[in-house]
């Protein structure tokens, strides 16, 4: 039993469990949150669940919903693959499972940050809306067909604890890959 436990890639196991935990948590707690005014408009974003609120009405954007399904399935399969790999790291199927699983949490994490960054740059350059990634900012937006009128918005944004949990999960999966050689060695008879 002790020998079997020693063969487990604990970094991979923790990374896999944490990745699945990240999925569950992200369905409730967004990675990044933006509110306009006193919650007149809200954006709750994560790679597995993104929703918008506008004047008390919630909605989602179908294209982003599709990306969220991709994110959810990727993380779910990655987590399962990492757990199976971690328990049997010396098996023949272990290495392909590791290669399949360890990169997805990191890529999901990076795509999310890059996506947010691209959206903020796009809004800044096209609509002159100063969207903060973290902290608060005021932004004056033009009102079409109403010259002489301006609307100034108070925007508050920030990364939530679920974002950092995802960062830890991605980190553990990377460490699991680096640790693989130590646990995958088949002892010679």
């Amino acid at each position, binding site marked *: 039993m002790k020998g079997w436990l020693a063969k487990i890639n604990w970094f991979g196991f923790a990374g896999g469990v944490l990745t699945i935990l990240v999925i569950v948590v992200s369905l409730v707690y967004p990675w990044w949150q933006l509110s306009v005014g*006193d919650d007149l408009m809200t954006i709750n974003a994560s790679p597995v669940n993104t929703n*918008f609120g506008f004047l*008390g009405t919630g*909605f989602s954007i*179908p*294209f982003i919903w599709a990306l969220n399904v991709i994110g959810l399935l990727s993380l779910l399969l990655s987590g399962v693959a990492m757990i199976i790999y971690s328990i049997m790291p010396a098996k023949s199927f272990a290495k*392909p*499972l590791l290669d399949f699983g360890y990169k997805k949490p990191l890529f999901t994490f990076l795509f999310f940050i890059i996506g947010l960054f691209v959206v903020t740059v796009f809004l800044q350059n096209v609509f002159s809306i100063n969207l903060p990634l973290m902290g608060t900012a005021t932004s004056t937006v033009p009102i079409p067909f109403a010259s*002489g009128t*301006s609307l100034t918005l108070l925007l508050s944004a920030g990364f939530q604890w679920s974002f950092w949990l995802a960062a830890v999960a991605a980190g553990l999966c990377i460490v699991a890959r680096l640790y693989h050689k130590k646990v995958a060695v088949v002892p010679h008879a």
Partner: protein
Amino acid sequence: MGKIRLLLTVITIVIVVVPLLGTLLAYQGNLLGMFVPPEMTEIVDDLVSGNGDNGGGLEPPKMVGEPQYDEASHTFAVTFEYKNSFPLNITVKSLTGNIACKEHGFPLGNASLSEPVSINAGDTGTLTVFGKWTDEAINHFQNEHANEENVEVVLLDFVVDISGLRLELDQSQIGQGIQVPNPVYEG
């Protein structure tokens, strides 16, 4: 091992392609709907047109009763009713503006909301706006409008803060003037 890698690669492709393809097929007749959901356009349409469940449209505040004037302090109070047509509770945090004589463009004083007012969704709230005539304004009323019971004024640099949304309007957006009692009129 090669078969496992191939299977995992296929799975990776499937979980990326299927959701995107499914959404694309679902919205093939309305590709814009993939990015702008119908709920969003309905909300905006309802706000602008005044129809539907998402609000009765943006309505300007309605003045209630006659403005009250206190001669000793040169202050006046104007009461407005505002219907919250948004489907959520709002707070009118502040409201400020400068007042000028519509006929002469002469600056007369300023006005501001007495206190923040919270209005529940669909309810109507009462906003009391206090204003103060300057000494120069009193002279202007005496010199230019001494025989008029009411004087038409306009609001300039009007700023209203509703639940963190700050709307600034210039005179062209405020529309017509408001009749206020002439503080120096003696009948």
